């Protein structure tokens, strides 16, 4: 049911509506469907977790859907992304299948990784998703290497590296962006600042006038993005991707957004100020999208509701698929460590 994304920007014009400056109908529908798929998928995963149908940890992306969706809307199918521990949204936005994802969260043999990875370790190379990552900051060198590979192979792909405000003070941030800028690599570094690194506020982890200003140090564009506005994310990523694909090097985008839930499924996020929470909840990216497109008459309520219903069905089917799938056979325990040992 993952509706195919329209051609990405930068390669072909997408027939944007002249009146509203909104993307074309197909893209609007894809964006909405993608954001709703992310939210409903995670809500269903949460219910399954609370019902003890899955174990481990879940890091919810709820509230940040516009960021991953707007970024991936600007990519081709063969472009690469690296993701984070909070990676469900990136995987879905890059075209991931909900049934295979849910089965992986359930630890089932039919999951994306045969049950070896779980929530924090889903990849799909066929979709250009090089993988989520359990280590904060761990994906930055990997993404930079993928972009280096693209340059060597001249394959015209751009890599997007997702990371959070918690990774920005890590050495890998500087090592990677420095190298990417040195070699004008086709990469876009996307910092999703959801304000919280576990239970520590971004203001207590990052010195200086803001993460985005670090781009100046490496002579690359640094762009502030309203990470709860999918259209702003899409427009600014499109420009950065175009630049990268043209061989002009990386950009650093900082998407200001908000983690609606706690750090993990276990965290009630009691450390947050309620006024702050309320203010951010009022900027919910999905509600904003609905208001914008209905006001502009770019999408009807009926269409939105139809997509809602389709996504609910898709999610229910994914849970059913996961629940009814078998656990991996024990003889797979040692499979996949090496290609030949």
């Amino acid at each position, binding site marked *: 049911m993952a509706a195919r994304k329209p051609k990405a920007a930068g390669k072909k014009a997408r027939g944007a509506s002249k009146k509203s400056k909104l993307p074309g109908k197909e893209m609007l529908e894809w964006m909405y469907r993608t954001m709703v798929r992310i939210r409903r998928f995670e809500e269903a995963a949460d219910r399954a977790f609370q019902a003890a149908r899955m174990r481990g940890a879940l890091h919810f992306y709820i509230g940040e859907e516009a960021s991953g969706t707007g970024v991936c809307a600007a990519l081709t199918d063969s472009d690469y992304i690296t993701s984070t521990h909070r990676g469900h949204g990136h995987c879905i936005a890059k075209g991931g299948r909900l049934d295979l994802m849910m089965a992986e969260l359930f630890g089932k043999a039919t999951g994306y990784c045969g049950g070896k990875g779980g929530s924090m370790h889903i990849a799909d190379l066929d979709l250009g998703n*090089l993988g989520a990552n359990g280590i904060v900051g761990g994906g930055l*060198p990997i993404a930079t290497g993928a972009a280096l590979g693209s340059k060597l192979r001249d394959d015209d792909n751009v890599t997007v590296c997702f990371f959070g405000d918690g990774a920005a003070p890590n050495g890998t941030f500087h090592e990677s962006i420095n190298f990417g800028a040195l070699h004008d690599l086709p990469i876009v570094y996307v910092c999703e600042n959801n304000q919280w690194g576990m239970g520590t506020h971004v203001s207590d982890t990052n010195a200086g006038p803001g993460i985005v200003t670090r781009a100046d140090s490496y002579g690359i564009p640094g762009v502030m993005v309203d990470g709860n506005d999918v259209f702003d994310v899409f427009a600014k990523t499109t420009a950065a991707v175009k630049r990268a694909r043209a061989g002009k090097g990386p950009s650093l985008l900082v998407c200001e957004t908000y983690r609606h839930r706690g750090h993990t499924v276990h965290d009630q996020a009691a450390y947050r100020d309620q006024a702050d929470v309320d203010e951010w909840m009022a900027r919910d990216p999905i509600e904003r999208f609905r208001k914008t497109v209905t006001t502009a008459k770019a999408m009807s309520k009926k269409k939105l509701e139809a997509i809602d219903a389709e996504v609910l069905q898709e999610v229910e089917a994914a849970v059913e698929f996961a629940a009814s799938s078998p656990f991996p056979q024990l003889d797979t325990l040692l499979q996949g460590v090496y*290609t030949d040992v």
Partner: protein
Amino acid sequence: MDATKARTAANGETPVEQRLIFFNQALREAIDEEMTRDPTVFVYGEEVGVWGGSYNVTQGLLDKYGPLRVIDTPISEALIGGAAVGASITGSRPVVDFMYQDFMGIAMDQIVNQAAKNRYMFGGKNALPIVYRAAFGAGIGNAAQHTQSLEAWFTHVPGLKVVAPSNAYDAKGLLKSAIRDDNVVLFFEHKALYRERGDVPEGEYLVPLGVSDVKRAGANATIVSYARQVQFALQAAEQLASEGIDVEVIDLRTLYPLDIDPVIESVKKTNRALVVHEAVRFGGFGGEVAAQIQELGFDYLDAPVKRLGAVHAPVPFAEPLEMASFPSVESIAQGVRELMQGI
């Protein structure tokens, strides 16, 4: 040691006319040949380009292959480690130079959490054709932070292969195999070997990973080792021969996957085993080898398996201290004598 014998043992071939070249030159030939054979192979790391590698292994490759395929990196070890993951899973074959094994600590997350686990945790689909090269080992006065033998760190992590050649012939053939391997291979080069010559024939040959090699046949005791200590063991064996002790020397060459069978076969014959490495003895890879000998060959042992390794201290600078800190030809010979007496 006699490199011709190594060739004979490794390939079962008749020795051909000698071509003596340096260990680092043999490594260079391996990389050069593989870069010519496969356009997806490229080299990057600290000082690999203009400098030509801190031990001249990559000398001349920048001129020959250009700056796209021979890339000098900043001193950014995490980037160096992780970029290989991204490049390899998307279709390139990086040969990465960390310069010194000691520096790999800074890249440990990328090697251990990213490279080693990528294939397994993502469901066993990805190939990661990466070679991480690094110089290791003591004996040349580089002091505590440039001389360690940390191979056991890496053999402990599933998902990595670990190679440590003892001579130029093996170095070339093993490195070529490592570059062609679809897994993450850590290739450790003992820095005291770079300027040693060995007999390396012209032209194409491979030494497979995961195959131990009997470097010297003997009947009375078995020495198991790898890298530079194999050379010491062979010299010790010559000394011991004059004392009437006939020693077999087995070069593991690859630590993971470990080919233990030739070791067990040897112990069945000699009934005595000494495991030697330059790494700190406590917690070293020799403990694994000794344990496997006892698990698989207990009935054949006439004495406990003996281990020699470095003392439990950082490598000191002053020459007499440094040389006393890890096994020598003399301490190996003495170790065998004690083994023969059941001490």
